[in-house]
């Protein structure tokens, strides 16, 4: 259990009238600039493949792959970004992908955090064994059981509907595992106090656990969203009709064994990455949220 007892030193701090500031390390401006420069170089290195995707999306198909690589296109094919919408049903794909990602994320976060509370804060026989079964299924590669699962889904008439993907992803073990670990960091004393106050277990979950685990919930939401957004094999198996396709599936129609329209694929891929990146950037404050001291004093 993470320790939460407030050390006595802080009591000493409160009593002393003069607040001692902890000595600040002197980091010169030069050091700061160098540090930033290093980080910018690292960021550039990390973003290189994305840069390649962008420039490829602005080339013609036959100039995407050359030896040596052309880092700046000769002629910018801006029309690719229009073509992807007119020649292919990018709007349908976007719509489907968005719908699936949002629904799956919502369900995973909800049922996952709900179940995680049971695995973490409630004690009953067989709890840990069942939890290991959950984690165990993560250890089985999906290709191995995807056909028995497909047969099952077909019998349940889920195949070739968006429900198949929702059913596939929304009840995964990953969310349960992640949230359980975060609930472990919440001290037992909090729940005890709440129970004494008369809150039911469900109340504790809603009023105490959820607000405290916002970074974990945000991380789970983002990761689930990204995984569903980028999922290829699931939609490949279960979304056959053209109007059900997701972006990853739709882009692959530009691939044939004999001729691949790489430029358009890259255009679609760039458009596919942007929403996720924007969500991540704008949602930063949910991931990195300082938690106020948990108020155990007294």
């Amino acid at each position, binding site marked *: *259990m*993470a320790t939460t007892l407030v*050390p006595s030193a*802080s009591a000493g*701090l409160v009593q002393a009238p003069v607040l001692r500031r*902890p000595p600040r390390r002197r980091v010169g401006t030069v050091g700061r600039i160098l540090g930033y420069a290093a980080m910018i170089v690292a*960021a550039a290195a*990390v973003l290189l*493949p*994305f840069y*390649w*995707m962008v420039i490829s999306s602005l080339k013609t198909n036959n100039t995407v792959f050359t*030896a040596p*690589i052309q880092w700046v296109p000769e002629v910018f094919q801006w029309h690719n970004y229009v073509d992807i919408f007119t020649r292919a049903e990018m709007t349908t794909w976007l719509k489907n992908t968005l719908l699936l990602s949002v629904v799956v994320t919502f369900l995973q976060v*909800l049922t*996952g955090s709900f*179940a995680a509370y*049971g*695995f973490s804060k*409630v004690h*009953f026989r067989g709890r840990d064994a069942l939890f*290991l079964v959950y*984690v165990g*299924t993560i*250890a*089985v*590669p999906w*290709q*191995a*059981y995807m*056909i*028995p*699962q497909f047969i099952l889904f077909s019998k349940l008439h889920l195949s070739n509907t968006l429900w198949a993907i929702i*059913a596939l992803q*929304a*009840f995964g*073990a990953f969310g349960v*595992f*992640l949230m359980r*670990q*975060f609930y*472990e*960091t919440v001290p037992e004393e909090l729940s005890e106090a709440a129970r004494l106050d008369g809150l039911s*277990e469900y109340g504790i*979950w809603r009023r105490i656990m959820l607000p405290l685990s916002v*970074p*974990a919930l945000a*991380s789970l939401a*983002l*990761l689930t969203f*990204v995984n569903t957004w*980028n999922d290829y094999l699931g939609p490949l198996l279960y979304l056959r009709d053209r109007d059900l396709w997701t972006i990853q599936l739709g882009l692959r129609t530009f691939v044939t064994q004999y001729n691949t329209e790489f430029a358009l*694929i890259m255009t679609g*891929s760039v458009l596919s*990455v942007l929403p996720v*990146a924007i969500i*991540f*950037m704008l949602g930063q404050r949910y991931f*990195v949220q*300082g938690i106020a001291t948990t108020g155990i004093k007294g």
Partner: protein
Amino acid sequence: MSIEVLLDRRQQAVRRRGRLRRHNALVGWSFILPNFVGFAILTLLPVLALFFLAFTGWNAFGNAPWVGSDNFTRMISDRLFHEALYNTVYYTAFHIPLTFAASLGLALLLNRKLRGVAFFRTAAFFPYITSIVAIAVVWNMLFSPEFGPINQFLQALGVSDPPGWTSSTDWSMPAVIIVATWREMGYYMLLFLAGLQTIPADLYEAARVDGAGAWQRFWNVTLPGLRPTTFFVTVMLMIGSFKIFDLILVMTNGGPGTSTVVLSQFIYRKAFVENQFGYASAASIVLFLICITVTVVQFLVNKRREA
């Protein structure tokens, strides 16, 4: 007090405990049920079918003729399986510590209120959300022995015979490990960031007041506080490493030769290319057993540390 009263009190206590246990079980199950119902029907059932299929010679269409443990004995003498197992362990042994260190380091570095830190965090996360095809293509180009910038850089440093990377059987796995680490460090960085938020700031304050340096603060405050997250990250890293598939498929497809064939790929090949689903299921069971054993060990170690 008379014996009867004592016995009676004891019986009441037992009944109360029994009732409490039942109550706890009911409450616990009520929490788990929504997720569990979906999980059991849609995931657990096919996985159990897999366990059954491992003992058959199923080819996806017809019957599943029972072959007992033939699949497993076949694996013992299957050179490709040995190669796949070796490659997977090789990959895991390097990938886990590298990714763990990189993601934890990034999380610690980017946990502060620097200017533009949101941008840097997004940059670190970008590799994970970028199309894996793009990643494979670009890294292959970077690693190109003739034209790639990496080898050109190495040659500029004076290395006379730079490695062949993805077109050499010796260096293809290191290349894959580098790319996989680069790709996943943002993912685990995110988890570590969330975990770092659960450590109360006044613990750091107190440690600083007590005179602890940065390293001591890290060792005595951060690491213990991160233990549940660390457990999660190491389990997911381990399972993920053993199951690695997509990246290798698009980057090297197991080649050159069989230098990057890993277990998941072996399973895929046997199942979808050679149509031996029973055999592939058996290999999956082996993969599962390895993962679950290590997970259980980690679980027990973690539990003991917590107590």
